[in-house]
């Protein structure tokens, strides 16, 4: 075995020589034998396989999680994008990989970058499931005071921290919600690029949100050169020029650094999703407000935003206008005497007579709904992304034990586990379907034992109805789990679906023009979807 460095540790010999010279002291034979026994028990006699399985007492990982961990370690050399669909346990996969490396002694120093709101959840899960003590970084702790740190990316990229971090030699870096790194121009990207990293895991449910470049930048963080350099990559793979063969090559290349488990491939029997769209007629006073904001023109805000808000609640409109110092529309707001959507929601909640999770995009609507339900004898708790972890836990507990309804805003989506609830009302819809999938993922994840009911509200004859008809009805995004959508969008090279929609809705001069454009978009998406179905028998990641 030439050219392999073999190193012996010299300490044992030094101490031995000293003990011989001084005639002892020598150790106890039974303890000596115990030491041999314990050392043998921690050996890893094979490069392959997962030793970690013997080390878990508190929970049993699922088959696809173990497979993923093994694939990442053995085939991807510990550098991978973990891109499972929401709710399949990316954190657990990362934990398995981390633990395996710790057991094998390949990893000592670890940095885990997560959104601030998820830090304590990560540390809790690592200690409870994996017995890995990870410390949440606090100001001025010094980055070499512990071996395993959890930190928010915002904390880490501060100048004083970044300087120190770049000097540290990390063995493993884990980044949760890694889609925040897709833009090369950002400080986030710069930080991760500069960190020294032997092994690296990027976790994201949405590796491609809008553009093909995003996956290029993610992969290049992990393995620069794997997709070539930027110019060569775009030249070859941008949709316009991409041949079918290139398409396969691209998939092949990506599958070498990315694992993406889909629900249907996990072998877990998922409970069903029942989707019901409920169209709601505006009351005459609400219609007056909607028409008024539709005519409203301002340099500072788009009409579309106000229209969407008017579909949610008059409070939402009021809040935005107040912030901008406009009061011309105030009379229209004041004359609204009821909220048709809220009435429908109340009726539905009373009929369901079970836990209900309501999502709205607007904080003003959230507050209003809480008040409105209380007036009608229904207890609800609010939930927002900005809550501290302790408050989030508390709200989650209140919802489980005391309140019938939880009202969450968009930002509350990440890091909520509510398997005990089986009903979701989407009070207003996000225009990015991936975000909708994240909402549903809060309750439709493993551990859910019942079928899940999803109620989508849309007000008739408004922008909301247009979007609903396109995104959610025609292309049936609910029935097919949205997981495929990122492929579709990439294939389409629809740069930014949300922006596209805004363009159509705000720039069309007539109703007719708008309808034509919308129909075009719909058929395009449908076309891409069909293409996708054809090539989809071939999984996106290698099997």
């Amino acid at each position, binding site marked *: *075995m*030439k050219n*392999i*460095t*073999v*190193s*012996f*540790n010299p300490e*044992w*010999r030094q*101490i031995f*020589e000293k003990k*011989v010279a001084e005639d*002892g002291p*020598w*150790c*106890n*034979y039974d*303890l*000596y034998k*115990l*030491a*041999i*026994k*314990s*050392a*043998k028990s*921690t*050996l*890893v*006699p094979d*490069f392959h396989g997962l030793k970690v399985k013997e*080390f878990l*007492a508190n929970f*049993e990982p*699922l088959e696809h999680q173990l497979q993923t961990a093994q694939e990442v370690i053995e085939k991807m050399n*510990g550098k991978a994008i973990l891109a499972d669909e929401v709710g399949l346990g990316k954190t657990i996969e990362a934990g398995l990989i981390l*633990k395996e490396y710790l057991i*094998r002694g*390949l990893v000592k120093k670890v940095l885990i970058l997560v959104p601030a709101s998820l830090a304590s959840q990560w540390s809790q899960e690592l200690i409870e499931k*994996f*017995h890995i*003590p990870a410390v949440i970084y606090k100001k001025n702790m010094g980055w070499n005071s512990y071996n395993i740190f959890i930190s928010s990316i915002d904390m880490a990229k501060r100048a004083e921290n970044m300087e120190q971090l770049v000097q540290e030699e990390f063995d493993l870096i884990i980044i949760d919600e890694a889609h925040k790194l897709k833009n090369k121009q950002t400080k986030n990207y710069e930080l991760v690029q500069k960190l*020294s*990293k*032997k*092994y690296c895991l990027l976790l994201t449910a949405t590796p491609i949100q809008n553009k093909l470049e995003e996956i290029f930048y993610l992969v290049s963080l992990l393995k*620069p*050169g*794997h997709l*070539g*350099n930027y110019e060569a990559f775009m030249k070859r793979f941008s949709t316009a020029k991409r041949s079918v063969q290139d398409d396969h090559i691209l998939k092949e290349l990506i599958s070498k650094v990315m694992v993406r488990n889909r629900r249907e491939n*996990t*072998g*877990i*029997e998922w409970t069903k999703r029942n989707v019901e769209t409920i169209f709601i007629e505006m009351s005459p006073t609400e219609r007056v407000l909607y028409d008024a904001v539709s005519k409203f023109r301002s340099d500072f805000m788009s009409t579309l935003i106000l229209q969407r808000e008017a579909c949610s609640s008059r409070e939402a409109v009021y809040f935005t206008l107040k912030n901008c110092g406009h009061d011309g529309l105030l009379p229209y707001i004041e004359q609204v005497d009821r909220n048709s959507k809220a009435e429908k929601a109340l009726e539905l909640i009373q009929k369901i007579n079970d836990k209900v999770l309501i999502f709205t995009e607007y904080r003003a609507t959230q507050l209003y709904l809480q008040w409105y339900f209380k007036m009608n004898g229904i207890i609800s708790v609010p939930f927002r992304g900005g809550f501290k972890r302790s408050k989030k836990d508390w709200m989650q507990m209140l919802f489980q034990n005391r309140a019938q309804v939880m009202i969450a805003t968009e930002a509350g989506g990440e890091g909520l586990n509510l398997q005990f609830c089986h009903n979701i009302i989407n009070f207003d819809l996000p225009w990015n379907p991936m975000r909708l999938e994240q909402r549903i993922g809060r309750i439709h994840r*493993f*551990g*859910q*034992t019942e079928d899940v009911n999803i109620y989508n509200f849309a007000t008739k004859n408004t922008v909301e109805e247009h979007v609903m008809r396109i995104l959610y009805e025609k292309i049936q995004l609910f029935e097919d789990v949205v997981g495929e959508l990122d492929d579709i969008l990439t294939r389409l090279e629809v740069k930014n679906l949300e922006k596209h929609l805004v363009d159509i809705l705000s720039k069309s001069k007539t109703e007719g023009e708008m309808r034509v454009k919308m129909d075009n978009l719909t058929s395009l998406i449908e076309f891409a979807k069909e293409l996708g179905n054809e090539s989809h028998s071939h999984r996106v990641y290698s099997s």
Partner: protein
Amino acid sequence: MTKRIKHTRGISNAELQRKKQEKAYGFDSHYLTKWRKHHVQSQEIHDFLHDYFVLNQCEILEKSGQFLSVKLTVDLDKALMNRPFYWHYLEKTGGEANPSVLNFVTDWTSEENKKYADPKKAKDIEKIHFGSTRLHQIFEANQKVSSHIRLYENCQNALFPWLCQNFIISYKCEKLKSVFLSVGLNLINGNIIEDFDSKVGDLDLKPKIADLSYTLHPFITLNSGLNRLENYVKEKLSTEDNGWAVEARYRLENEINLLNEFYEDDLNNEIYQKEVKDLNDLFTPKIDVRVLNGGLFYLSNSNF
């Protein structure tokens, strides 16, 4: 009404619930076998802990099923409890030492020990299993104090001097495997044997030499003996299959090629230099040999 129907079918509500859960969590049929394996393993750990604390002269306060309560000695408290200030303070003030009591449960699934499963009710009880930090801390503390030994076979013969070393050999690239190798060298005739630890396992060995036996004087000095053992290991490693290292080098080469392609005309770039270093650190194959423990064995056998 529904309840009664369920009963006549012989399926209770609880069982239905369990089945539903199994379905949702996707338990496989091996679940029970795995559980049994866990049970055997936890008994072993329990025995290990018991032996360890008894050998270290700790008082066993309670031992039942897989539950163990021990009062540490001062030495073990210092080794395991990480409270140097307390001990420093005691030494300064001359107060009375009060070493900690530790409680361990190694199987909390059995009927008898179920009460320890809830962390709130069993606050001061540590759940120990193969992955727990405490167990590995004990492993380490024990290995630290049992690294050098000298033993004599309890018999009435001339005793041959043997030098023994137990190695942990780690083969390392971006993956790792580790093996145990126990080697003994006869310091008179130069014979080297493997599996030394198990070959002497059945002998009656004592720290003091028996009254009527005596040791033979070694021809090989300790220094030379240690060199011989080191060379023996190196020689052995050099004849092993090195496919793993060749593959690792191949992977390294590939990675560096990709990197060169990415940075093309910018090879002086600082980030490029760093990436090259990281890749080399990660993939370059190496072998670490650590002596776990070993020492002098005086045995009536000159060969095995």
